[in-house]
């Protein structure tokens, strides 16, 4: 149930925030400076029509993932399409580190995330098989290794030296590089004299990035590390205006959504809707109708988010805020309800 709900959250959040890729055609083919890997095969940008087709296909696959139709196949398609569309923009030589949101559907397809709260579940009418645990643990390992790589590079380039205040330097570099930073980050230059606080920030950043890998074997510790990570992403947003929402979406795979949604599910109107959905009888024709509906929905979403980029930007900020709220809630719960009580 948790992963079924998460599949919907992942697909909707990604559908609303995936970037437009058509801007790459405004650059000449000579600007291609592909990173090591399969992108080296690209010698010229595809036409705008091909890029639009890729965007529409990507949205369609995400809509099918949201409704849970042909989930195993669609999960692989989402990974391939995200890898390709993000990759095309990285051929200009700047990689934006979206690997977690790309790999999550492929990995979670092995966790049978389409077997609940899905059209596939209504079509198969099979008793839900037990959910294998290894895909979630593997996703946790992938998240942990990715952060370890960043921590390693920071450690190797002097972040932990007491004289560097690297986080402050990078934040100020971003601040002074831009002519128009939003009001939300204009507090940063006023804090340059608090060197000790910024040095502690350097150490906490590296510690948080290492903690994600080292807590992978223990779910509770790993979730605490992820809760710290979403607060880190909120801090990055407030200090640099960098919106790293795609990672926050991936951390959602480790949230007990069924438990979190229980109060909502207890409402009579929601309960009735769930019961009615569970009792539905679907055949292959109905599945095709659902696919058509998903196609229409994805087309509208693609058109609206491409035409009004502010929608994607706003949704990304909301994802970080929501993630931070869930993270704080989880940390508070650990502190209040789970921490050992003193003997009175």
């Amino acid at each position, binding site marked *: 149930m948790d992963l079924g709900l998460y599949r919907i959250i992942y697909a909707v959040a990604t559908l609303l925030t995936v970037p437009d890729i058509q801007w790459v055609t405004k650059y000449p083919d000579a600007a291609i400076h592909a990173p090591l890997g399969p992108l080296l095969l690209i010698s010229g940008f595809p036409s705008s029509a091909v890029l639009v087709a890729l965007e529409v296909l990507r949205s369609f696959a995400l809509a099918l993932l949201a409704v849970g139709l042909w989930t195993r196949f669609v999960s692989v398609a989402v990974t391939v399409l995200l890898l390709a569309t993000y990759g095309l923009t990285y051929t200009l030589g700047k990689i934006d580190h979206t690997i977690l949101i790309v790999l999550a559907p492929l990995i979670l397809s092995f966790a049978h995330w389409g077997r609940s709260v899905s059209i596939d579940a209504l079509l198969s009418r099979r008793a839900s098989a037990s959910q294998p645990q290894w895909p979630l643990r593997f996703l946790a390992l992938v998240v942990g290794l990715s952060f370890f790589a960043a921590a390693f590079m920071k450690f190797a380039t002097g972040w932990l030296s007491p004289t*560097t205040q690297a986080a402050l*330097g990078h934040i100020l570099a971003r601040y002074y590089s831009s002519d128009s930073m939003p009001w939300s980050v204009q507090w940063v*230059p006023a804090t340059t004299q608090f060197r000790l606080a910024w040095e502690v920030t350097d150490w906490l950043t590296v510690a948080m990035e290492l903690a994600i890998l080292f807590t992978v074997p223990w779910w509770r510790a790993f979730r605490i590390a992820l809760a710290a990570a979403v607060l880190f992403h909120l801090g990055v947003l407030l200090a640099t205006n960098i919106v790293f929402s795609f990672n926050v979406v991936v951390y959602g795979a480790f949230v007990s959504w069924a438990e979190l949604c229980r109060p909502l599910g207890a409402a009579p109107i929601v309960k009735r809707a769930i019961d009615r959905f569970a009792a539905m009888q679907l055949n292959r024709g109905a599945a095709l109708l659902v696919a058509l509906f998903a196609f229409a929905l994805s087309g509208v979403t693609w058109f609206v988010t491409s035409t009004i980029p502010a929608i994607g930007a706003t949704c990304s900020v909301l994802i970080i805020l929501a993630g931070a709220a869930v993270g704080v809630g989880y940390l508070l719960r650990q502190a209040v309800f789970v921490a050992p009580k003193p003997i009175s």
Partner: protein
Amino acid sequence: MLTSAVGIRLLFAGTIALFPVQMLLIVEKNEPYPALTMPAFSGHPLEGHVLVLEKPEFRVQFAGGHVETVPYESLMPATPLDSLSIFKNVFPVHRSAINPETLAWLKSNIIRRFPQGEPSGVDIVWRKASYDVAHPGDVRFTTVRTVHLDFGREP
């Protein structure tokens, strides 16, 4: 295969075993894609109170001798990615490395930005800006290199 116990162990072991190879590539060559890594923000740009940034600019020459100076990003298409990284890839510091197609593209961008004049050439001025963060507004520019591109001749 993948869902068997052996396959799962191989997947975990293989991922962990390949990770150092990926790190070696990142450190010794360039970051591959796809790769398991997050933004590194390597290094520490702040030295004492001084922050040094690259701030290249274009000095566009028009027929008749008129010159316009503009920030580098004003002649680059809008991008959601870091435009300085892309700029540095598009315009290498060595004149001979700049592709004729790139030159024609830059000229068309200049004409779009300055439709009233015919550009005859452009200087790419690689500058460093030194900010004294203790005294906001105190900035010193140093020209590191100037690359001249002539639109009248084949590069």
